[in-house]
């Protein structure tokens, strides 16, 4: 049976009349990488802060690793690590000193662990450089190093790749995937770079205006994404006639890109190709077009249409 590492029931956080979180019920399964997706102010950070014990819910319940009492939650948090908003650090200290302070606070006996995580996030060569001289990307790396320090079973990461250069984004992605695969670390991650999340996540949670609007697995998302075949021919008029009259395809349109978009009969592509060729409507481009996470998000959160 899959263990629920996070479970919330009707979690609500209200500031005056504003509901930052509204009745959120959610489960995160062990071993998953769940992307928390939503616009600014949707409630992602509030939810993460609630999981971290920084913010108290107005109503509702939550359990971490099956524990829901105050003591139990505190104990469960020792199995987790968090990186919320801009990574917190002592500006006047070096990366090594910051991590050493955290190592002591977390009660990690192995001193070499600091060097290991610095190596992992490629900050081991920062020497005596103080954090106040760090770029945003370096701060992010330090935050990730801190999250890795205690060898957590569950990582909660709020915008961890924000400010990283493309090379850094790939490195962090690869590292998170490796941690998930090899050490079975469960990850809850939010990011505005949805293309990155789509390369990383096994599950998606969409949240907007404090409410959970959809939760689905990667497979479900793939199925949900409306896709079409784009066919560019030398004679669109003739091709459209072949597709509708000879092959009986009804769901099609000529797109703004000048190509014919067909929304059904994907399994008949070889037959379609042959028919067009024989009708002298020679296909010069034939490609599958899939809706990506970004477009799906726009549809879900902003009510946009893709089909």
């Amino acid at each position, binding site marked *: 049976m899959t263990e629920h590492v996070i479970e919330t029931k009707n979690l609500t956080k209200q500031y005056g009349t504003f509901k930052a979180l509204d009745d959120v019920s959610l489960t995160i399964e062990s071993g998953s990488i769940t992307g928390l997706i939503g616009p600014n102010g949707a409630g992602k950070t509030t939810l993460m802060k609630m999981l971290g014990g920084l913010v108290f819910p107005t109503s509702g319940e939550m359990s971490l690793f099956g524990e829901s009492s105050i003591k139990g939650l*505190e104990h469960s948090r020792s199995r*987790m690590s*968090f990186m919320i908003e801009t990574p917190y*650090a002592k500006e006047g200290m070096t990366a090594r000193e910051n991590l050493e302070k955290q190592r*002591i606070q977390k009660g990690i006996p192995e001193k070499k662990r600091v060097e290991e995580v610095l190596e992992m996030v490629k900050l081991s060569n920062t020497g005596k450089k103080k954090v106040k001289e760090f770029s945003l990307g370096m701060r992010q790396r330090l935050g990730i190093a801190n999250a890795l320090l205690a060898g957590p079973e569950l990582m909660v990461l709020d915008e961890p790749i924000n400010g990283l250069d493309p090379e850094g984004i790939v490195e962090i992605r690869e590292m998170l995937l490796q941690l998930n695969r090899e050490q079975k670390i469960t990850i809850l991650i939010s990011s505005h770079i949805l293309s990155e999340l789509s390369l990383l996540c096994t599950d998606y949670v969409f949240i907007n205006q404090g409410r959970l609007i959809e939760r689905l697995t990667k497979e479900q998302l793939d199925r949900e994404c409306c896709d079409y075949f784009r066919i560019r021919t030398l004679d669109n008029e003739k091709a459209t006639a072949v597709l509708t009259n000879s092959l009986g395809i009804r769901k099609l349109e000529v797109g703004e890109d000048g190509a014919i978009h067909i929304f059904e009969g994907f399994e008949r592509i070889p037959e379609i190709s042959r028919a067009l060729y024989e009708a002298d409507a020679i296909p010069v481009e034939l490609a599958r077009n899939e809706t990506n996470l970004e477009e799906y998000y726009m549809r879900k959160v902003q009510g946009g249409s893709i089909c």
Partner: protein
Amino acid sequence: MLNIIRSLTYFVKRDPVLLLTLFTCLVFPFVNVFVSGADMPFSDVTGSVYAIGHGADMGMFLMFGIMVLTTRISGTDCADKTINYELMMGHSRVRAYYARVLVSGLVGGGLLWIISLLPLGLLTLLNGWGSNGDMFNILLRAALSLLPFLRMATLFSVMTLVLGGFGKGLVFSFLFFDMESLAVSMIEEYTSFRFGALLGYSDIQDMLLYNNCKSVVVDGHIVNLYETGMAPGRILASVIGAVISILIISVAGCIWFRRKDRQ
């Protein structure tokens, strides 16, 4: 809680503001002794001369040291939010809170109190105690002043934790310290309530103050006569008041700290 205390100690040892403040508090009394005692030979500056002449002034100076140290230790982690890591790691709020109050008290109150006694000890070692004051009386008062020092350290620390930052804590502690002296003297002028024993700084100063000091010659020896700034009964009230205040202030602060959302 021990791990939080250790990590705070790690910070204390590396923070330039804290180290500079401790260094200043260590050096200033000696500088003061040498500057104000420039008109007499160094060998005449005995332990009792220092205690009677500079004790209360040093108390006032060290109060500013306490302010900086306690607000810095309690407030820096709140301002840069690194305190959040402790809570997200599973440390309870009570432990995170009391670790700060404790380290602030030990460093800001205890360590500074020891530093305040160093010139007294050193001058006594070098030049002897002298005949300007009763050693037991003065040392007892100096020892008992630890509790009001801790009371002030607790107050500044809790105020900083409630306000949520070093800068805010320092400004409000200074304002409180400034206003309190005026308020205490006014209240005590018109009522019989000894307000200073619970919250004020004036008790510490009075405890270390020796008034109307004058020199007389007895059997060919110069002897300084003085009145103590605080009667024994008031000293006891100040010590008991300090313990009560520490308990009330720290518990009240803890209740607030436990319930507050952290951003």
